[in-house]
């Protein structure tokens, strides 16, 4: 088992290095001269040259790439923003909690609500409750979440005045972003949960449990749910990466200064170090979530466990 975890972590680091290479190259190819962007169109050639030297973008591609990889992976230094001159790591540390609060809370909300809805639909399969839940899920999947967010702002902030429309500060500011970020996940998890539960309805152990006269809600809780958990975990983990990857849009809608919005600041300001740092963070985050999910499988699923002990021998 230890060997497996080690293998996976090494592979994850390799992927991250490859991703860093891709990210660096993409940002290197972005058209436009950052020095000109910073100093304005009237800056003289000499001043621009000095600025370019200062930013380090007068060096050849391969040198810049090596420098970036060395700083990011060996010295864990994210660099300094070209535009603001502030250390990016500090800026990100300040913004990270906001993105994580929204990401994790909406994950918990969508996992819980989605699974409950999925179980509810599955146990009422074929009845109107099932159809109603699935229609709801279909609508939630099809409606763009940032538009729902705008509509919620209209209803709850502009009309009813219950919650603040944008910005950060109190807990109230996070209510709408969390709800809006979780809607898509609720729908996905409900569909996933329903089909995973229905898989187990046909299983023999459920028939046995029913034959021995077990109560229906115990069958659902003790026999069906644990066996339906794997696909549900997959859906939940996928949902978390979706929420975090969608954060640039959601944070724009609610004007929340989080990592996603920081990335857009970098993109719009031709501030490559910011974009690289944010994307590397997202990549690291995604990789860690996937790794955790795989390890969960390995621990939970006896079949996968058996495969390792087999391989070891």
């Amino acid at each position: 088992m230890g060997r497996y975890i080690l293998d996976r972590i090494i592979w994850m680091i390799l992927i991250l290095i490859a991703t860093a290479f891709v990210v660096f190259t993409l940002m290197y190819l972005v058209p436009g001269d950052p020095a000109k962007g910073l100093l304005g169109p009237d800056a003289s050639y000499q001043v621009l040259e000095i600025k370019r030297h200062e930013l380090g973008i007068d060096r050849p591609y391969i040198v810049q790439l090596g420098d970036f990889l060395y700083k990011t992976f060996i010295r864990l230094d994210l660099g300094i923003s070209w535009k603001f001159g502030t250390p990016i790591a500090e800026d990100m540390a300040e913004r990270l909690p906001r993105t994580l609060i929204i990401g994790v809370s909406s994950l918990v909300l969508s996992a819980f609500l989605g699974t409950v809805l999925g179980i509810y639909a599955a146990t009422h399969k074929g009845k109107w409750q099932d159809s109603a839940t699935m229609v709801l899920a279909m609508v939630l999947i099809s409606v763009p979440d940032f538009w729902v967010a705008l509509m919620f702002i209209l209803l709850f902030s502009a009309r009813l005045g219950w919650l603040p429309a944008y910005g950060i500060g109190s807990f109230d500011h996070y209510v709408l972003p969390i709800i809006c970020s979780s809607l898509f996940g609720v729908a996905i998890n409900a569909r996933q949960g329903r089909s995973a539960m229905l898989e187990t309805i046909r299983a023999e152990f459920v028939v046995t449990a029913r034959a021995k006269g077990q109560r229906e809600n115990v069958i659902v809780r003790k026999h069906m749910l644990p066996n339906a958990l794997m696909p549900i975990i997959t859906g939940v983990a996928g949902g978390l990466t979706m929420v975090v990857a969608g954060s640039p849009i959601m944070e724009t809608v609610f004007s929340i200064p989080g990592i996603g919005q920081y990335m857009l600041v970098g993109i719009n300001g031709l501030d490559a170090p910011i974009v690289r740092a944010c994307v590397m963070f997202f990549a690291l985050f995604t990789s860690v979530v996937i790794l955790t999910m795989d390890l969960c499988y390995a621990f939970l699923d006896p079949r996968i466990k058996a495969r390792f002990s087999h391989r070891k021998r």
Partner: protein
Amino acid sequence: MPILEPEDQPNSSFFGDFLGRLGRTAAAKIGVVLLVFIVLACFVGPLLSPYEKNGIDLTNMYAKPSADHLFGCDAMGRDILTRLLYGGQYSLTLGLTTAAVSSLISVLIGCIAGYFGGVTETLIMRFMDVWSALPGMLLAIMISAVLGAGFFATVIALTIGAIAGGVRMTRGQVLAERTKEYIEAAESINCSKLSIMFKHLLPNVVQPMIIIATMYIGATIMMAAGLSYIGLGIQPPTPEWGAMLADGRAYIRLYPHMILFPGIAIALAVLAVNLIGDGLRDTLDPKLRD
């Protein structure tokens, strides 16, 4: 796949089950009707509209919905309905192109990886691991930044973001198919590898891809709108749905009609495609049926 007997679904009454099945097929039908309606409206509607897509009319700034302007006007007095219909042309074309191109590429790569196996497969799949370490939306945002604004840049950005997932799925399908008898038969009569891949393997792995591609049309329409909303992708004054939402954002309190209708347009288009996708899945692929 044996037909499920009623006792397999202990909780369903006969009538409820029947309604459920009817609902399923009806859902797909609704999807088709809705999509045909949207396509007709977007490609024929603008011809009938008395307004230009960028026809500025300062007397009608922020006009609320009325008989003249069914969905009202935006900050420059442009008719929102007309702009929505034009925007639909972009969104639908973009969704279809992206889904078609990305699934074509990913089926090809996936087939090669799955059928040839060995070093080829390892290399391709490792490459895909890196590719999918970044969620599609982020990749699309960065590629949009590199390629700049515009229709084709957005198509390329969203296509690239979609390929890795499709390759994984196709490869899985190919792995399941390649041990079957008909491939063995084809190999034993000395079919060339290419002919086995294209003539025998491809038709059998392409069905799930069609389902995924249909679903992806909807996802693309939504992502394209998201990109435009944050100022990447297709830019104003092109009447793109997401860009229209971004335009109306500032007037949300006073003139909510400016953001109400573009959102409904996106939702209807995505809903139509998703309903069809669900219906296709239920009819084409009994294995995926719940």
